[in-house]
Each structure stands twice: as structure tokens, then as C-alpha cells.
């Protein structure tokens, strides 16, 4: 396998970084709603959000997938206000993979669209980790459907235009594009530690949608699972990019700041703390690249490695954020200095990593490795995605 990043990819990453730094407001400045919306429209128009999806297409060259991940690191290095991960890492790849043209149009017209990305499911008999969306029930009402339920902690929901809702109609899984202005939709107050992506609950109470607009391809669950795994890697890339950025800022700060007559970065306690998190972060980068490659080649251990990668990179980012705050001293504790933005993103990434479910999934994987005897009477079911809704296939 080839981990090398070619010059073209490196240049793309730099170009994206420059674009984000120049054009996107710093989330730390808590930009006003109108500013955020303008910036989001520009980001959507720039097509940078689409780049990650190019690497995740079926039959894409494994090296392209690694390259896309490398470019995505820029989103971590220059944080943006908006549901970047949900759109670039999940919705666009999903819409492209399943040929959802209406969804694509909505994602590309400058609207701010958000969603809940499926989370790791309870392991099934084959112990391969999978992700499943929590679906809201859609009930037929003439030509319309009525959707009800609560989506909790949806990124950037306050101020968004629409939300992509995982629904279930007549026992079949589907996706619905729901404008948040519709009757019956209530969006809660934004909250949360991550300044890039404040979360809010979205409550749907008998919201009417056109039945024909529901996207329900036959293999939707499979695609949701694959794209959610891709999204997990996108978060890894953001974590690596964010970590590299705070480490660079910390190195610069510790070189300039003098105490006891010497730069604080010459003290070994400081040097080693930075070296330590650097090792963790480079480890995270290695694993994420490798998993991207292995997903593209459908290597057998890849689904478990996706989970492992999220566990490690979320921990590495948090360690880097903590070290950055500490090594900046009091300055690191100020809002103005800005490293808190990354620390906050790291906290949110760690919290969102679903550590409990991830550990259960990996324990099941280890159990299967230790005892590869084929499952008993349930063996038939092993081939089916776990949690498939009855009647879906």
C-alpha cells in the first residue's frame, strides 16, 4: 500500500487551507448569523465540500481515498462554522452513492442542510461493526406522509434550512429532505461545547412531506453504513488536522515565550509533552490513511479498524488540545488566544465517538477473531446487515 501523499494532493490541501483561512469566519469570534450564512453559501459554491466524496465513490482508487482524507485534514486545521462533517463527510457521499438527485440539489443550492449521522449499532452474529440510523416513523396520510419524532443534538440545526431525516415507511427505510420552516417542526436552542457546531434538538410533530419525495433505494442501509464509516474517517482527518494545527501553534508559542531566561520550549517537560502528543497524532494519521485504503479495497478487518481509528484519533486530538492549553499557560486559558477552539472541538469529537458502543463493537470483533467458528443456526442471517428493517429486502 502507498501512504505517500503526492505533490498534487499536498497542493490541494494547501489551497483548501488558504481558502478556509481567508474566506471563512473564525468560529471563535462567534460570527453573526448572517455572516455564517454568507460564508456557508460561499463554501458550498466553492465545491470544496465535494472533494471528500470523490475519494469515497465505489471503485475509487484506494490512493484517491487516502488523498481525499489528507485534503480533509484542512477542515480540522482551519475550523469552520457549519455542518461540514455531516455534509462533506456523510450526506454528499450518500446522495452520490445512492443517486439521490433531489437531495444533491438541496445540498448544492447554498442551503444549510444538516442531519444526524448513523451511530455504531449493537454487534450482530458476524461481529462486523455496522452503523445504523435511528429512523423516525412516517405514516401515510393520503398522498402525504406524516413524520413525527425527535432528533436529538443535531449539529448546526438552529439556523439551518433543512434536515435530512432517516424515516421508515411501511417498514422500509428512506431519507426525507425536510425544510425546517414546515409546520410541525420545532428547533430547540443551540448549545454545546463545540463552537463550530452547536447542537439543537429537532422535534417533528406530524410534519407533512410528499410521499414521492422520499428517497428509498433498495440498498439504502448498506450505503448509510458505508458512508457513516467514511464520515468516521472524515472526523479522524479533522482530528489529525486540528491536532497538527494546535501542535504547530504550541511549538511557535513555546519558542517565543521566554521564562527563566530561556524559551519555555527548551524545557524538557514541555518538549516531551509536545513530542508525546505528536507521536499519538502521527499514529492517528497512519491508521486513518491505512483504513481509508483498506475500505477502498474492502479488506476484511476494515470495519473494525474504522472504529479503532475513531477511538485513537479522538483521544489523540483531545491529548493534543489539552497539551496546547497547558503549554500556553494562562494565555491558553483565554478566549482570545484561540487554542480553546480546538480543545472544544476535540472534546466534542471525543464525546461524539460513542466510546461505549465502540468498545462493545471491538470486543465483539476480538471475540470473533479468537473464535472464528461460524455462527450456528443464525449463520444465514450473518450476511444481512444487522438491524435491517423487516421487509426491507
Amino acid at each position, binding site marked *: *500500500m*502507498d*501512504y*505517500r501523499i503526492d505533490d498534487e494532493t499536498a497542493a490541494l490541501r494547501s489551497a483548501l487551507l488558504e481558502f478556509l483561512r481567508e474566506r471563512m469566519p473564525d468560529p471563535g469570534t462567534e460570527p453573526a448569523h448572517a455572516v455564517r450564512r454568507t460564508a456557508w453559501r460561499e463554501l458550498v459554491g466553492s465545491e470544496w465540500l465535494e472533494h471528500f466524496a470523490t475519494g469515497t465513490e465505489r471503485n475509487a482508487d484506494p490512493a484517491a481515498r487516502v488523498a481525499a482524507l489528507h485534503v480533509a485534514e484542512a477542515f480540522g486545521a482551519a475550523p469552520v462554522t457549519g455542518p461540514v462533517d455531516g455534509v462533506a463527510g456523510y450526506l454528499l457521499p450518500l446522495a452520490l452513492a445512492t443517486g439521490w438527485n433531489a437531495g444533491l440539489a438541496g445540498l448544492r443550492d447554498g442551503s444549510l442542510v444538516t442531519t444526524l449521522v448513523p451511530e455504531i449499532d449493537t454487534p450482530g452474529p458476524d461481529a462486523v461493526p455496522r452503523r445504523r440510523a435511528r429512523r423516525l416513523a412516517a405514516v401515510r396520510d393520503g398522498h402525504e406522509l406524516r413524520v413525527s419524532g425527535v432528533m436529538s443534538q443535531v449539529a448546526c440545526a438552529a439556523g439551518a434550512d433543512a434536515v435530512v431525516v432517516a424515516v421508515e415507511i411501511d417498514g422500509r427505510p428512506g431519507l426525507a429532505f425536510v425544510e425546517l420552516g414546515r409546520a410541525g417542526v420545532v428547533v430547540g436552542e443551540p448549545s454545546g461545547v463545540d463552537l463550530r457546531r452547536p447542537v439543537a434538538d429537532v422535534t417533528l410533530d406530524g410534519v407533512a412531506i410528499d410521499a414521492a419525495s422520499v428517497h428509498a433505494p433498495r440498498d439504502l442501509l448498506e450505503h448509510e453504513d458505508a458512508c457513516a464509516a467514511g464520515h468516521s474517517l472524515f472526523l479522524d482527518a479533522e482530528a489529525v488536522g486540528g491536532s497538527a494545527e494546535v*501542535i504547530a501553534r504550541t*511549538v511557535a508559542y*513555546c*519558542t517565543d515565550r521566554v521564562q527563566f531566561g*530561556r*524559551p519555555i*520550549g*527548551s*524545557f*524538557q517537560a*514541555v*518538549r*516531551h509533552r*509536545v*513530542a*508525546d502528543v*505528536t*507521536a499519538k497524532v*502521527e*499514529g*492517528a494519521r*497512519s*491508521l486513518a*490513511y*491505512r*483504513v481509508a485504503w483498506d475500505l477502498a479495497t474492502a*479488506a476484511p478487518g476494515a470495519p473494525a*479498524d474504522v472504529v*479503532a*481509528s475513531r*477511538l*485513537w484519533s479522538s483521544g489523540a486530538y483531545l491529548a493534543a488540545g489539552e497539551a496546547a492549553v497547558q503549554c500556553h499557560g494562562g494565555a491558553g486559558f483565554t478566549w482570545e488566544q484561540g487554542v480553546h477552539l480546538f480543545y472544544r472541538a476535540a472534546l466534542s469529537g471525543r464525546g461524539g465517538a460513542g466510546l461505549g458502543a465502540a*468498545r*462493545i463493537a*471491538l*470486543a*465483539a*470483533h*476480538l*471475540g470473533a*477473531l*479468537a*473464535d472464528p467458528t461460524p455462527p450456528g443456526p443464525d449463520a444465514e442471517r450473518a450476511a444481512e446487515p444487522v438491524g435491517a428493517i423487516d421487509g426491507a429486502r
Partner: protein
Amino acid sequence: MDLALSGEAAAYRDQLRSWVEEHLPAQWRDVPVGSGDDAEYVRMRREWGRMLHRGGWLAPHWPTIHGGRGLGVDAQLAFLDVLVAAGAPEQMNTNGMGIFAPALMAFGTEAQQDRYLGPMLAHDDIWCQGFSEPGAGSDLGGLATRAVPDGDRFVVSGQKVWTSYALFAQRCYLMVRVTGVANGVTMVVLHMDRPGVTVRPLRNITGSSEFCEVFLDDVTVDADDVVGGIGAGWRVATYALARERSTGLAQRALQLSRELELMNAQLHRDGHDDGVLVEAFVRSRVVDSTVRRVLATVADGDEPGMLAPVAKVLWSEGHQAQLTTLVEAAGPEVTGAGGGWSDWLRALLFSRAETIYGGTSEIQRNLIAKSLGMPSDRG
């Protein structure tokens, strides 16, 4: 670790695999480091080296004139892969072949290469490494072993320490300071049977005694046993150690992954919760991926730079943590060393060496900080 292999390397791997299946004695499989009698352990590894050599399997990446097959580094990795998967012991001259031989090919004279590489490969000569001294550990610059020029020879005096397998070695690649010249640090070949060489084994943490003190009292070293010229010692040593960082590390990472599988199977069989190894599993994937990244860089002809110390830290500390997990998972079963756990206990004890040899973890962190551009810690 699934490695992308060239056709030749893949063919070599397949042949080697069937040869190992046929020839590796069952009682030599999965023998942990430092177990049993030292002399017996060395005998096994030496005999295994001889068998591999006779089969023509050793050092496939060496040029044919030196006894190799002239294949790429991928063949060397295939060699490691097959042997680790089979639970085979390392051939005795792993250190000499991995560290000294590449330096000798790069800096040594043709006569030296002819004199030393063949017997090394054949396991007629066992090699040890004489770098560390009581006053020169992490700081090799403190090297005090003196070599006084005397016609066509040097008279060497001093003391080496932590010299692995010195008791069993015929040859030693030795770092000395040649007197009477500025920057006289030099690498030479020492014949261990010369008068004035005294080897005293040191008992290590596991109870075995494979590393030693080596006392040198007016020992003769021939002038034509200087490698790379007088004063070239740092250059030769740095080159030698850098080679170790790719394949040496690959082998250890392969072993870490294999051990995780074995530990997992054993814990599972004994009815332990499969969750206990989750952290270790994640770490093993990180180590494996990072080492592969180092290898890919080296295979491209680039220097691994900061990735080399990163990989060393991740591997050594990861391996220690992985083995310590066993104690936490199976408790007294392991610490009491009953059942099948005593080998693991020894491996755990031995793993403490891994953050010390090859540059301690602290030294690796210094290197990482330096690569990041942090100010020097020397004030």
C-alpha cells in the same frame, strides 16, 4: 501486516513458507525471549540460523556476492512475515545482519566484506555490538574506550556494558576513540578470542544473562579491521542504526500483532471478557499502520525523519502496555505464572528493555521535539 510484494518476493515468500513448515522443529516455535537456559537458547537460534542459511533463505535482499539473493527490501519483509507467523525464533545474528552488515557493505573494504559477511550469514561467527559503556549510554559521546595506534595495529583498553550475547560471540563491532587524533571516534572489528578480552555476564530483569560486561585490557585490533576509516565512527554508526529502524521495527511490530492474536485467543479460551484487549487492539493497529508508513517511506528512498522516533515510541510503549494489560486482565493467573502464562510474564518483564535499548523513549522524544523545531534543551 499485509505487504504489497513484487512477484519475485511473493514467490520467495511462498517457497520459504513451505520450507519453514517442513523444517522448523515444533519445540522451537513460540519460544519466548529469555526463557530457559541461555546457552540452550543461543544454541537453538544459532542452529536455526545455520539451517536458514543452508536453505539459502537468509538476507534475500543482500547482493548475491555477499550470499543474498539480490531481491528488494520487500523480500526481507516477506522473510520476517513468514518467520513471525510461524512463531520461529530469530536467527542468532539478527543484530549483526541488521545493523552492522549494511554499514560494512556501505563503508567497509572489499576484503572486510569477504572476510566477515559470509561467516556471519553462515552463523560460524556470532556477532555482538560494543557501543555502550558505563559512562556512555544515551550519550554515546562519552565514549572512553581507547585505541592506541601501534604500527599496523591498535591496542584497545576500556569497558563495554549491556553487550548482548557477548559471552557467545566471536566478533564484536566496537566503537572506540583512537588517541592522538582529533575526533577519533572509530568503528572497528574486535575478535573476541584475543587475549585481554574478559566477558562477564549480567543477570537481567527476567533472570537470564544474555547481556554482559566486556572488559578490554590491551587487546589487539588489526589496522585493517577499521571500518570506514579512523574518525568515521559516528557516520558509520549512524548509518548502521538507521537501517535498523525500518526492518528491525517491522519485525517487532509484526510480533506485537501476532502476540495480540495469541493473547486474545488465550484470554477468550479462559473465559475472560473480550473487552479487556480493546485498548491494546486499537494500539496494535496504530503501531502496525505507523510502521507500514515508515516502511513505505523508506521503500520510496526517502528518510523517515520524525516518523522513525514516533514509530519507536508507539511500538515500544504500546508493546509494554499490551503485555501489562494481561496482568490487569488475568491477574494472579499471570503474576503467579501458572498455566500457560509464564512465557507471557517473561515477555512482559523483557519488554521493559524496549523503551531503553535502541535509544530510550526520552531520547526519542528529544528527537521528535527537535524535528518539530522546538528550541534546544541544552539552553
